[in-house]
């Protein structure tokens, strides 16, 4: 087998999901996530799984909820708009502790709040992973299924138009992941046990009447996830006077711009959060501790910058150097995603010409 094959980020996610044992997929077409649905309709039946071209995102998430409740590794993908429609079910299935993997191929990076804060009700959280390459998308997809089962908590992969459609070399090494306990909670029909009610009010032998206790029980794991599941990449931080924070595909552009800045003698470093929730607070805080300023590059009106500010806690100025940026279609790459432009903005903040 060749070590690596050329494929788009969407295809890498599909193949990684198949290899991770995903056997149920439901979706509704929407750019730029449609390829995942199309590829799944080929791959799922080939491996004994099921792919449903659902009537809407609302039906799709219901189906995934049911399939995942049976203990089958299940995935759904959409774009911010479709993810908006799923929020009620997201909130409830998270509280019912059903592990699913949801992919959001955003248009731009405008869905950071939606992913990390959630648009649904209540105290639920999704673990959110933001790959910057097709390879990382494949690796994080495999990890996502593991984390979902490990924590019995939904995991979101947050990508974008570029990740979805850029072809890159990918390999599919089986990841070294710890064994997980059997899904004793699942609707499997196993003999010798009573029926279980998979409900937001606690998956128990019967519906709980103590709503507060049931929800407190479900959310208790959040702090453990925060301490165990942070993932982050950084570089050039040792003597960095300016730290640039960026996530996802644009994180690669920032990394490159930082390298160019270094070649020009600027002491600049970068932090690329890979897990958006839990957010790498300590990594950002310690990078900022020795810097003069922190710059945030994101393709929206300023969303992740709030997490950066919460990490830095006012010790140094935090400056936004990104912005809303789309092509004419509204889906694709806008003018701000340009290394020269990012480099110029880094230079402005570095030289103090741009006051926060």
């Amino acid at each position, binding site marked *: *087998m*060749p070590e690596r*094959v*050329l*494929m*788009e980020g969407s*295809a890498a996610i599909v*193949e990684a999901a198949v290899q991770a044992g995903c*056997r*149920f997929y*439901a979706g509704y077409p929407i750019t730029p996530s449609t390829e995942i649905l199309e*590829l799944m309709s*080929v*791959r799922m*039946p*080939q*491996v*004994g*799984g*099921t792919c*449903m071209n*659902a*009537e*809407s995102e*609302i*039906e*799709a*998430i*219901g*189906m*995934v*909820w*049911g*399939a*995942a*409740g*049976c203990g*089958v590794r*299940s995935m759904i993908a959409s774009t911010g708009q479709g993810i908006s429609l799923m929020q*009620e*079910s997201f909130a*409830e299935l998270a509280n019912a502790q059903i592990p699913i993997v949801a992919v959001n191929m955003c248009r731009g990076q405008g869905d950071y709040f939606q992913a990390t804060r959630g648009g649904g009700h209540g105290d639920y959280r999704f673990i959110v992973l933001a790959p910057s390459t097709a390879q990382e998308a494949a690796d994080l997809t495999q990890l996502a299924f593991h984390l979902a089962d490990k924590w019995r908590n939904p995991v979101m992969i947050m990508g974008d138009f570029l990740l979805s459609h850029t072809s890159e070399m990918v390999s*599919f090494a089986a990841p070294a992941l710890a064994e997980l306990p059997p899904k004793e909670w699942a*609707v*499997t*029909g*196993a*003999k*010798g*046990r*009573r*029926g*279980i*009610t*998979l*409900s*937001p*009010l606690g998956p128990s032998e*019967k*519906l709980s009447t103590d709503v507060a206790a049931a929800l407190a029980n479900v959310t208790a794991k959040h702090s453990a996830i925060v301490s165990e599941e942070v993932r982050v990449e950084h570089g050039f931080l040792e003597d960095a006077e300016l730290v640039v924070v960026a996530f996802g595909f644009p994180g690669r552009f920032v990394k490159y711009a930082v390298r160019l800045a270094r070649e020009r003698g600027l002491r600049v470093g970068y932090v690329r959060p890979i897990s958006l929730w839990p957010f790498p607070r300590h990594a950002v805080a310690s990078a900022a501790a020795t810097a003069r300023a922190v710059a945030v590059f994101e393709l929206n009106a300023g969303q992740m910058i709030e997490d950066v500010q919460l990490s830095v806690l006012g010790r140094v100025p935090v400056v936004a150097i990104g912005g809303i940026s789309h092509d004419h279609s509204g889906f694709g790459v806008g003018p701000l995603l340009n290394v020269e432009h990012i480099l110029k903005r880094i230079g402005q903040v570095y030289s103090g010409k741009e006051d926060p």
Partner: protein
Amino acid sequence: MHASGALEAKDYKSDLKPIWCPGCGDFGVLSALYRALANIGRSPHEIAFVSGIGCSSRIPGYTTAYGFNSVHGRALPIAQGIKLANPDLLVLVAGGDGDGFSIGGGHVPHAIRRNIDITYIVMDNQIYGLTKGQLSPTSPRGTHTVTSPEGSLEDPVNPLLYVLGYGAHFVAQSTPADQIGLTAVIEEAIRFPGFAFVNVQSPCVTFGDPNQQLKAHKEGLKSLAKINYDPSHRVKAMALAQTYGKDLYTGVFYRNPNPPPTFDSLVRERQRHMAPQAMPREKILDTFLPH
């Protein structure tokens, strides 16, 4: 369990006490369901019972089956996911008229046209019970409720016609006032290979109009079994379904004598057919080449 090993109605009864109002029709649906399940004899752990939200949607919790208490209107998508992921399970869905024909109404046609092997029981009280008495999609025109104090201005959905129109292959109606008949249609619906629909006229004694719905009907309760009705014609069934809201016919309105294969069985067939097409790992790339 009976000494013979046969399951009895009480084996399907959970230790959770129903909190429905005394006299609620849903009690009668539950007891008919216990009996129908005992007649069928599948163990509770082989049954997944899915509901949305509503008074009626509490029903899975009162059984020993696997219960899925989900969100308002979404029981059918979840049930389809369950049946496709775990086809060995017997999958039941129950809920209210609001759950099924207003907020979740958009899901019904698609569950029907796929003909997934699930049984859908609607407890039609022509009112929103749980939220205390608002107008429902099956409330008759002119119904006075807290949201239609002067009487409603719109016609109700006809659940029987709705599902017949979308091509359901098994359609029945009954009422808890006829325990024997209700048990029989639930049992038959569960045994039917494919999507089966049972509309149960289950009155809400607190916020509904049980007089209008049942007492009046008791006099006019018309058992289809007794009038020599032949349920094998969809168009005749649709004509009969026009009586919804006027007469209360009970029994099987339509049963396709030659039901088509279920979606779940077709999915299995597709998997068998496509498995050999799965690429060896070294040819994965080919799968992703543009056609």
